[in-house]
């Protein structure tokens, strides 16, 4: 996938996600007993669930659950990355050492464990994907800062800045355009995109586990369906002997996951330096 294609793909996918989130209905449609578990060929475009409701609503509501938290988490990580890079360029040894230390500690914690503990301690009324997504972002941040710092190091850190100063560039121009714009961009955007993907996967995992135990979701209002609902609905079709024809839901769920992954890659590629 070359850069311009990546750019287009990234744009489209983010656009689609946002659009889906925007048009997602507040509640699922009414039950239609006469079109239960219809395949996409019978009921366009995605088929129906066990109550005869179109899976389109599942897809859009799932997008709505993810879109903003994932995006914000991605941006957060990217910003942290930029910060890390700039700190290395404005090279205060103590700060950098401190970053190293934090990275060590945070990096040593299994993320899922932290997420679950946060989920446990959050009061019900505050339960949503946002706090979890941001926790994830915070856990991912040190890594991003580290990588960005490494890039800055390769540039020559503070010496690079001095050199540009010598050329008479203004500090803001040096940091924003040369350091961030030209050099950090590829790294931090890729990190951000990966975080978005991970948050999406996290949501689906948490929702699925809650569904499997018939518990209220950690991540979204129960009036909304997560993409995990598609996996849950489609899963029995994996065991042929159950002759449960909900395969289309599984396919749709996997398709959406695939799209998320592809988009993350695309965004990363799109941000590559020319």
């Amino acid at each position, binding site marked *: 996938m070359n850069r311009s294609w990546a750019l287009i793909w990234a744009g489209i996918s983010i656009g689609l996600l946002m659009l889906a989130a925007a048009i997602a209905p507040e509640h699922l449609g009414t039950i239609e007993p006469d079109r239960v578990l219809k395949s996409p060929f019978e009921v366009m475009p995605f088929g129906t669930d066990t109550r005869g409701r179109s899976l389109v609503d599942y897809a859009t509501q799932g997008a709505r659950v993810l879109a903003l938290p994932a995006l914000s988490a991605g941006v957060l990580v990217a910003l942290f990355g930029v910060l890390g890079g700039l700190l290395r360029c404005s090279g205060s040894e103590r700060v950098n050492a401190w970053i190293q230390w934090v990275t060590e500690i945070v*990096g040593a*914690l*299994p993320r*899922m*464990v932290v997420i*679950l503990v946060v989920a446990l301690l959050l009061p019900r009324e505050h339960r949503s994907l946002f706090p979890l997504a941001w926790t994830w972002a915070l856990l991912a941040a040190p890594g991003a800062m580290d990588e960005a710092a490494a890039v800055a190091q390769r540039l020559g850190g503070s010496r690079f800045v001095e050199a540009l100063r010598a050329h008479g560039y203004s500090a803001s121009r040096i940091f924003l355009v040369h350091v961030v714009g030209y050099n950090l961009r590829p790294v931090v955007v890729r990190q951000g995109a990966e975080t978005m993907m991970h948050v999406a996967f996290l949501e*689906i995992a948490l929702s699925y586990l809650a569904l499997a135990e018939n518990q209220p979701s950690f991540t979204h209002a129960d009036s909304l369906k997560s993409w995990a609902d598609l996996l849950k609905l489609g899963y029995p079709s994996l065991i042929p002997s159950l002759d449960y024809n909900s395969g289309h839901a599984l396919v749709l769920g*996997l398709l959406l996951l695939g799209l998320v992954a592809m988009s993350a890659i695309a965004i990363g590629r799109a941000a590559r330096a020319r």
Partner: protein
Amino acid sequence: MLLPMVVPAVITGFIWSLPGDPASLICPPNICGGTEALARRWNLDGGAVQFFLGWLIDAAKLEFGNSWRLHQGLPVLGLLTAAIPTTLTLILLATVVVVTGGVLAAKGTLPRQADPAIRFIGLVPALVLALLGAAFIELTYGFDSFSSSGQFARLAVGAGVLGIADGAFSGAVLGTRSTFDTENQQRYVGVAILRGELPIENTLPNVAPALIGQMRARIVHLLSGSVIVEVILRIDGLGSLLWGGTLRQDFGVVLAAATLFAVVSSVLLVAQAVLETLVALHVRRSPRIQVRP
């Protein structure tokens, strides 16, 4: 090394920073026998610090009390001791998968043409692979899927899922390879070839610290993934405990399980430090020379 303490400390901080009575947060009175009894049990009256220390001391004495809700009445210690070996086996097997990937990459056995495929596999989230794995287990083992062989199959499949999903395997392969590629551009490697030595003999000690660091990070990642895998594949490990405890809000279980995860992680940190020292010693090795008269 203070990681195991950090975790309960952070959790404690969280509880006290949240609105509402810590006692009822830890376990609602109508479950845990009145706040006084509860306060005494968890020594909450002395505030966060005393609670934290009290818990640490009990933990040091391996006193975790009994489960409130998840497995009401069963001693948490018992649950943990049953769970730890399972999870460790799971992680160990998964690590084997990951390490194999690293070794194959280092030895160049894996063709670079396979990289796109490997990268793609790395994108698959653990949940999806775990679901497929569960279906597989149930189709093959069926009714005996909780017999010892079934249990082992769960572990094996779980380890496979862990080792492959979420970029574990691909990360190991690509990471190791790029590390070696960068090192092989060093001039001394070319010279080593002209001296009739194998490049890897020369580069390995120099890249070892980097590889060890990467591997540690990957194992931590496996730990994190084990939660999902254990729940989906119904493996009774630490992850299942943590998840169940979270759902049922069984504070004692969650605190203990989370801390144990932290313990494992810090053991990994220690292991990393030890290995790095060993490498340093290996590098400094040199025959003693006695000066001739």
